[in-house]
C-alpha cells in the first residue's frame, strides 16, 4: 500500500475513533480543547533546556488514549510522521549553542539540551493533539471553538481546511496510481514528472474544492451554521478541566521526576 493511501487511512482512522462512546467522548468538546490548550501553554512555559521535568506530562496524552479506548498504534504512527518536522525545528540548536553544561555526570553542549527539550515538548504536544482529535473529532473541535465564541468564519475555515486535506490526498492518490499503472517498472514518479504532476493535482483539487463549495453554499445560503451535538457544559466537564489544570500546575511547580529520582536513590532528607 502506498504511503499516501496509508496516510489517508490513518487520517480517517483517527476521525473514526472520535465516534467512540467512552466517558471522554461524552465530555463537552470545549472542556477537552481547553484542557489541551492549558497543557500546551504549561509545556511552553518550561525553560528551553529543561527535559526531565517535562517527562511526567506524558501522563496527559496517555490518559486520553487509555480512557478514550484509543489504540496507541495509530497515534504513534501519526506521531512518527510528525517527528521529522519536530526534529528539523530543533536540529540547528547544537550548532548555535556550543557552551558546555552539566547533564548529570556528563558535560554536553547546551544546544543538545535545547534540541532534546524541543523534541520532548514537540512530541508531547503532537501526541496530545492527536489524542484530542481521536476522542473529540474535528467536528467536535469545531463545536468547541464555536462554544468558545471563536468567529464563525474562522471555525469554518478550519473545518474546510481539514476537508481540503482529504481532497488533496485523494487527488494525489488517484494521479499517482494512474502514473504507476502506466509507468511499468519505473515505479515512483521521477523528478522530471513531479512538477506537472503536482500542478495537475493542485488544479484538480481546486476544481473539486470549488464544486464542494458550490454544493455547500447551495444548502448553507448564508446561514453559516454547522451541525454538531449541542451539549451543555456540565459539572463533570468542569471537574475534568479543573482537575487536569491543577495537575499541570502541580507538575510545573514541583519537579516530580527529580523528587522520584531522589526517593529511589535515597537522596531525600
Amino acid at each position, binding site marked *: 500500500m502506498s504511503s499516501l493511501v496509508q496516510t489517508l487511512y490513518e487520517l*480517517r482512522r483517527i*476521525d*473514526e475513533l*472520535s*465516534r467512540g462512546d467512552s466517558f471522554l467522548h461524552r465530555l463537552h468538546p470545549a472542556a477537552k480543547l481547553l484542557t489541551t490548550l492549558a497543557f500546551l501553554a504549561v509545556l511552553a512555559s518550561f525553560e528551553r533546556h529543561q527535559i526531565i521535568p517535562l517527562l511526567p506530562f506524558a501522563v496527559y496524552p496517555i490518559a486520553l488514549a487509555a480512557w478514550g479506548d484509543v489504540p496507541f498504534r495509530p497515534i504513534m504512527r501519526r506521531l512518527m510522521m510528525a517527528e521529522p518536522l519536530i526534529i528539523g525545528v530543533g536540529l540547528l540548536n547544537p550548532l548555535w549553542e556550543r557552551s558546555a553544561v552539566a547533564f548529570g555526570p556528563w558535560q554536553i553542549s547546551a544546544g543538545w539540551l535545547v534540541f532534546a527539550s524541543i523534541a520532548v515538548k514537540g512530541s508531547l504536544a503532537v501526541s496530545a493533539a492527536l489524542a484530542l482529535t481521536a476522542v473529540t*473529532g*474535528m*467536528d467536535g473541535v469545531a463545536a468547541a471553538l464555536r462554544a468558545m465564541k471563536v468567529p464563525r468564519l474562522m471555525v469554518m475555515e478550519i473545518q474546510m481546511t481539514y*476537508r481540503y486535506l482529504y481532497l488533496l490526498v485523494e487527488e494525489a492518490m488517484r494521479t499517482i496510481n494512474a502514473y504507476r499503472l502506466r509507468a511499468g517498472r519505473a515505479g515512483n514518479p521521477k523528478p522530471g514528472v513531479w512538477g506537472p504532476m503536482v500542478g495537475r493535482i493542485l488544479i484538480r483539487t481546486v476544481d*473539486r474544492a470549488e*464544486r*464542494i463549495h*458550490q*454544493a*455547500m*453554499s*447551495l*444548502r*448553507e*445560503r*448564508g*446561514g*453559516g*451554521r*454547522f*451541525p*454538531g451535538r*449541542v451539549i451543555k457544559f456540565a459539572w463533570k466537564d468542569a471537574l475534568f478541566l479543573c482537575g487536569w489544570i491543577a495537575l499541570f500546575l502541580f507538575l510545573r511547580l514541583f519537579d516530580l521526576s527529580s523528587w522520584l529520582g531522589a526517593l529511589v536513590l535515597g537522596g531525600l532528607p
Partner: protein
Amino acid sequence: MSHHLIEARDLHYTYPDGTPGLGGVSFRIEHGQSVGVVGANGAGKSTLLLLLTGILTPSLGEIYIGDARLTKKNRDRIGGRLGMVFQDPDDQLFMSRVGDDVAFGPINQGLDPDRVSRRVTEALQAVGISHLKNRPPFKLSAGEKRAAAIATVLAMEPDMLLLDEPSSWLDPKARRRLIKILQGFSHTKIITTHDLDLVLEICQRTIVLSRGRVLADGPTASLLTDRKLLDEAGLELPLSLHPAAG
C-alpha cells in the same frame, strides 16, 4: 402564480475564459412536471443548472422562480426553493456523518433542533437509508452516497429538485432503486443526464440541448424516438428502444 414554476428567458452565459456556455435558452416548467435535459458533452446542461440555482449569473437573460426574478440579491432566498443534487455525491457530502450532512441544510434554514431532527429522519426514510444516519459518508457505496446526497436536499423541503447526472456511477440495482425513489417524489424535477432510459421512465417532457441552445422541447416519448433529432444532438436512441433490444 405557483412557487413551483421555473422560467428561463433567453439565457446566455459565457465562461470567464471565453468558453461559450449557453446561447439563448428559454423554457417554462410548470408545477409538478418532470423534465429531462439531455445533450452531448458540452451542450450546456450543467451550466444551465448552475444558472438556475444562482451559482452562476447569466450574461444575458432572466430566470423566474415562481413570480420572482432571480437576482444576485435574492438568490439565497429565492434560489433556496431549488434543491440541487450534484453529479458527484462526494462533492455534496462533506460532514463526517450522514446525519450531520442531512441536517446541514435545515440548520442553515434556521429551524429549531426538533424540526431539524424530524426533517433528517423524514429525508433519510424517503430515500431508504435511515440505518446509515451515523455512518461516515466515505464508507458508503455509490448508490448509498447518491441516496444520501438526495436526502441532504430533500431535508430542506425544496419546491423543485434539480439533479445533475443522477445515475452516473450506479450499478443496475442502485440505478433501479434511484428511479423508484425519484418516481415517488411529486416535486417539480429537472434532470440533466446522458441516461436517456432514465429520462424515458421518469420525465414526461424533455429539452434537448446542443451547443448551448434548445434544439427541441416536447414530450419525451416523441423526442427520444426521433433518430434524426438525437443524431443532430450527438445522442443515440435509448437502449430500451434500440432495435437490438427487441
